C-alpha cells in the first residue's frame, strides 16, 4: 500500500470515501484547499487538521501511510518555511550575528508549513480514494460549462488522464533504466557531485527517448481504435449522486461555510 500512497495512486480498497461520487470528492477537496489557504490563524488550521484527519479516517487508509507520501515534499516545505522564518520583519525573537528570527516570521513559517502539508494531504486523500477514470470523469463533468466558451474540456481531461496514467509507468521505466545502467558499471553513488550529476544523463536520455516512443505508440493505438480528437464522445458509465454523496457534501459545505462566516464576523 505504501508504494501506492507515495505515488499518490489510487488504492483499490472499500471505504466510505471510495464509494463517494468523484464530483463530490473533487469539489470538497477544492473547498478544503480554499479553507486551508484562507485560514490565517493557528486555531483555524488546528480545526482543519481535525476535519482532514476525520476525512482521512473515512478512507480506511492509515495516517502513517499518508505521512509516507508527504515526506518526499518535506525538504521543499522546509526550504519555503526557512525563507519565511528569516525574511519576515517584525518583533525580534532571536538575533545571532546577521540572523534575525521574528515572532511574525516564526508564525508565518509554521502557518505556511502546516498549510502546505494539509494541501498535500487533502490531494492525497482524493487521489488515493478515486481511480483515474472516475477522477477524469468527474473533472470532465465539472468543467463541462467551459465548453460554452469553446474550451476543449474533453481534450484537457484526456491529456490529464494520460499524464496521470503514465506517472507510474515512467517511474518503473526510470527504475529499470537505473538498474540496467548500474549493471553496466555506472556508479550513481560515488564520485564528486558534478560527476554524479552527469551520470544521471544515463537515466534521463533513455527515459526521454522511451517517453517519446511510448507517446507515439499510444497515439497510434488510439487512432487505430477510432479515437478522433474533438469528436463528441459518449460515456460508458453515467455518474449519479446518492444519499451519502448529498450528506457528505452538505456536512463539508456547512463546516467550511461556517468557518468562512466566522472569520468574517469575528476575525479569528
Amino acid at each position, binding site marked *: *500500500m505504501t508504494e501506492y500512497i507515495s505515488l499518490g495512486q489510487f*488504492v483499490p480498497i472499500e471505504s466510505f470515501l471510495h464509494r463517494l461520487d468523484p464530483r463530490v470528492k473533487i469539489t470538497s477537496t477544492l473547498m478544503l484547499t480554499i479553507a486551508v489557504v484562507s485560514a490565517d490563524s493557528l486555531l483555524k488550521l488546528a480545526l482543519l487538521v481535525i476535519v482532514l484527519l476525520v476525512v482521512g479516517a473515512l478512507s480506511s487508509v492509515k495516517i502513517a501511510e499518508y505521512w509516507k507520501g508527504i515526506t518526499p515534499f518535506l525538504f521543499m516545505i522546509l526550504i519555503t518555511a526557512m525563507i519565511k522564518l528569516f525574511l519576515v520583519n517584525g518583533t525580534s525573537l532571536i538575533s545571532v550575528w546577521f540572523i534575525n528570527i521574528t515572532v511574525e516570521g516564526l508564525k508565518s513559517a509554521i502557518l505556511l508549513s502546516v498549510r502546505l502539508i494539509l494541501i498535500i494531504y487533502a490531494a492525497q486523500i482524493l487521489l488515493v480514494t478515486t481511480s483515474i477514470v472516475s477522477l477524469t470523469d468527474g473533472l470532465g463533468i465539472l468543467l463541462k460549462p467551459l465548453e460554452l466558451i469553446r474550451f476543449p474540456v474533453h481534450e484537457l481531461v484526456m491529456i490529464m488522464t494520460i499524464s496521470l496514467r503514465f506517472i507510474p509507468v515512467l517511474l518503473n521505466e526510470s527504475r529499470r533504466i537505473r*538498474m*540496467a545502467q*548500474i*549493471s*553496466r558499471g555506472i*556508479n550513481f553513488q560515488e564520485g564528486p557531485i558534478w560527476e554524479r550529476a552527469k551520470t544521471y544523463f*544515463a537515466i534521463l536520455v*533513455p527515459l526521454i527517448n522511451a517517453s517519446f516512443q511510448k507517446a507515439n505508440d499510444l497515439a497510434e493505438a488510439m487512432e487505430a481504435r477510432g479515437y478522433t480528437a474533438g469528436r463528441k464522445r459518449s460515456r460508458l458509465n453515467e455518474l449519479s449522486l446518492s444519499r451519502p454523496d448529498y450528506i457528505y457534501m452538505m456536512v463539508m459545505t456547512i463546516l467550511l461555510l461556517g468557518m468562512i462566516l466566522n472569520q468574517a464576523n469575528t476575525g479569528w
Partner: protein
Amino acid sequence: MSIKAENLTYTYPAPAGYTRQAVQEISFQIDAGEIVGIIGRAGAGKTTLLKLLNGLLKPDTGKMIIDEIDSSVCKKNSQMLIKKVGLVWQFPEQQLFETSVYKELAFGLKSQGLDSAEEKKRIKEALGQVGLDYEQFHDRQPATLSSGEKRRLSIACFLALKPRYLLLDEALAGLDASGIDRLIELLSRLNHQDGVGIIITGHNLGQLSQFCKRVMLLEEGKLLMDTATADLAHYYQPLKERGFTLPVHQEVLYHLKTRGWDINTRVNDAEEAVQSIVSSLNRGEL
C-alpha cells in the same frame, strides 16, 4: 571457478500487500565456461534470478557463491560483482545515451579508475569481440547504428568491464533471423575463445539449444528442470504442457520413439539426429 546458488529465495515487496515470491529455494551450480539457457513463462522468475546473480538484488535467504566470493555478504550493487558478472538487460540498446560509440563504451569504465591508454585498449578489444571495427565505429553516433549493431554495442559495453560471466535477459528477442544468428555466433565465440560463462534467458528452445549445452526451466520461481540440452526429449510432456516445443530434430526423435522405434533421442543437433535415425534403420528397428 563457478556460480553456486544454495536455496535462493527472493520476494518482491509489492504494493497493497500482494507480495510475490519471485524465486523460491533455488539451488544449482554453473561451472566457469558453461553456456546455460533458462526458460520459463513470463513472471517465472528468470529476470529476478539474473538480478540476484548480478548482485542488483540481495536474496532474502540462501547463499550465492561466485568464484569463491559469497555475494550475500557483498553490499547491494557491489561494483566487484557487477564487474565479475555482467547483466545485459532485455533490449539493452534502449539504454544507449552517449553521443559516440567510444563515449558510450567509456562511460561504464569511468568508475574503474583506468588510464586513458588502458581505457582505449579495453574499448578496442570489446568492439573487436562483438565484431564492430574500431576505426569504422568509434566516432559513430549510437543512434545511427542498425538494431543489430546497437545490441552488439550494448554487449560490448559489458565486455569492456571484462566479466567472467555474462547474463543475458531475453537477448534474442526483437531481432530478425540474421540478427539472431549473428548474436548466437557472437555468444558462442565469446564462450569458446574468451572463456566467458554465458547464462541466457528466453522462450524459444529451438534457438537456445543451438548454443546452450544445458537448459533450466523455471516456473513460479521454482526450478522445475535442469538438464543437458541433449536430454530435452525426456522432458517432452512437461515442456509441452507449459507451452514449450522441443527443437525440431529432438521432437522428430521423440515421436519416432513413441511409435516404438528403439532410437537414441540424446542428440545435440540435427546432424546427430540424422545419425541416430540412420543407425536405428541399420539395426532394422523400423
